[in-house]
């Protein structure tokens, strides 16, 4: 963190926890009797509560999307590049709401929270949460905040799935749905990568069938491996090549199996850092939510019939080198929207960073996103 805050930062922010004690019924058939959601907000809600924008986070995301928690923070929130004064999601005009989803591990109720029934962490007893469940809980949060209709619901990757689900489940509670680097359903290859990640976690001896909290231990190796394999899918061959190439940490081969290439030590470092801050059960839950997401499923696989319910306008963005959720997946979604006669705009942004590109402010991405959100702001008089 620099000595002073950048002018286009939302500044120092403080998360707030909201307690809900009306039971919420989940897609899996179980009910959570009560739960907490941790939330950050940026900007001011206007008088008619029309300028609210909901940010939905991806697999490893959380409520801290922009700004700093203290002057000691090394880095700002995960989407600080797009949220702030004068940024695409302009906090001088919008009231931005960002939460940690149910099942998360950053303060909202999840597998590492105390189960009131047992007074121990839920662990594997925490129900599997779906994208639909998240959207339901987000709608209850909107009620609590006095927001009847979002100006826009915005998300990248798994967050984009929530933005899409909002348009189907609460069509009259959002004006715009912004779906970035996302997909209407995972491919077999996507699910396969998730399965490798889950196997890495569950086969760690320290996983203890998900009750590792009881042993005061964390399945660190499994979580690290899961993150390493996930991380590969977030980058592109080209961006990895540019960043590391075949660069060695030392000058010559050592004819062993330690991390000799820079890319190996980078992945290990990323995996280790992640395993220190993320909960293994949450990782399982998030990847499962990804696997299950398929709004066309209840409509005989016909996505445009699923989308028929929506009444908001859509912005769909994809990135040229994203092979996790490739542009073709976004186009599938756009075509279903066209067929369903929805208002949709689509752009494929040329960017070398693979799936991670949705977090990186390339000029064209920023231009398109800014132009669209500017128009949303004008529409609601913000």
């Amino acid at each position, binding site marked *: 963190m620099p000595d002073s805050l950048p002018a286009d930062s939302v500044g120092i922010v403080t998360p707030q926890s909201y307690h809900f004690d009306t039971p919420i019924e989940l897609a899996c058939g179980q009910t959570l009797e009560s739960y907490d959601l941790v939330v950050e907000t940026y900007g001011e809600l206007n008088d008619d509560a029309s300028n609210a924008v909901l940010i939905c986070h991806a697999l490893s995301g959380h409520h801290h999307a922009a700004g700093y928690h203290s002057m000691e923070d090394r880095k700002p929130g995960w989407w600080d590049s797009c949220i702030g004064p004068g940024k695409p999601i302009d906090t001088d005009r919008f009231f931005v709401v960002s939460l940690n989803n149910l099942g998360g591990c950053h303060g909202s109720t999840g597998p590492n929270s105390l189960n009131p029934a047992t007074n121990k962490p839920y662990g594997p007893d925490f129900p599997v949460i779906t994208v639909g469940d998240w959207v339901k809980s987000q709608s209850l949060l909107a009620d609590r905040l006095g927001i009847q209709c979002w100006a826009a619901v915005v998300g990248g990757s798994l967050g984009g799935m929530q933005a899409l689900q909002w348009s189907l489940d609460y069509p009259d509670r959002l004006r715009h749905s912004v779906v970035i680097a996302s997909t209407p359903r995972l491919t077999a290859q996507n699910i396969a990568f998730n399965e490798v990640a889950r196997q890495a976690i569950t086969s760690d001896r320290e996983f203890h069938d998900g009750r590792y909290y009881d042993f005061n231990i964390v399945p660190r190796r499994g979580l690290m491996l899961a993150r390493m394999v996930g991380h590969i899918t977030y980058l592109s061959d080209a961006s990895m090549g540019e960043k590391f190439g075949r660069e060695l940490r030392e000058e010559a081969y050592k004819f062993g199996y330690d991390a000799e290439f820079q890319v190996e030590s980078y992945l290990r470092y990323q995996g280790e850092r992640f395993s220190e801050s993320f909960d293994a059960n949450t990782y399982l839950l998030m990847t499962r939510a990804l696997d299950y997401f398929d709004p066309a499923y209840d409509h005989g696989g016909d996505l445009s019939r699923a989308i028929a319910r929506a009444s908001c306008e859509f912005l769909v963005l994809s990135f040229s080198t994203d092979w996790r959720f490739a542009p073709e997946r976004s*186009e599938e979604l*756009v075509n279903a929207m066209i067929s369903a*006669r929805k208002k949709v*705009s689509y*752009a494929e942004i040329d960017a070398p960073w693979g799936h991670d590109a949705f977090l990186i402010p390339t000029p*064209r991405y920023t231009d*398109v996103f800014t132009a669209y959100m500017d128009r949303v702001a004008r529409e609601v008089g913000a």
Partner: protein
Amino acid sequence: MRPDLEIIQQWIKPGDHVLDLGCGDGTLLDYLQRERQATGFGLEINPDHITTCMGRGVSVIEQNLDTQGLENFDDAMFDIVLMTQALQAVRRPDKVLDEMLRVGSEGIVTFPNFAHWRLRWGLALSGRMPESEALPYKWYNTPNIRLCTFKDFEALCRQKGIRIRSRRVVDGQHQNSWLARLWPNLLGEIAIYRISREEE
């Protein structure tokens, strides 16, 4: 508004579902949405134009007609498909015309006339590829790779069984002069055609 767009908008019925191929900065669709309560999409590949469209609330899809065609659009889903000043820039205008009249019940096409007297005169006199206000490029960098004359276009329509419902011929300033009406293939610079499938 550009006079050619002025002519086109008269042919759009209130509430029409419109597809605009090569919609540019979305001026026409924006106008049709506001003044004709039209709905629909523009297709565009120019990044700046796409940004402008999004900023003004015109639904725009980044899609390249040459490589992607119109396969993602259902049969007869539009009332009108527009293509202003883009026919001469696609690789297969004949196929685009077929696709236009598959996805829409009517089409409106405008393009520059390569048989305009000034172009003929320029070529005859200088022996160099003609340039004009409507065609301001050099032969090696022009996006206009499929130039044709009004007669060529009408011959293609006949061959394909496409009915020309109306034709308006204008000069470079898009003015509808009586001379251009009299002798279109020689004196008209830009034509605006309204086409549909020949009724069975």
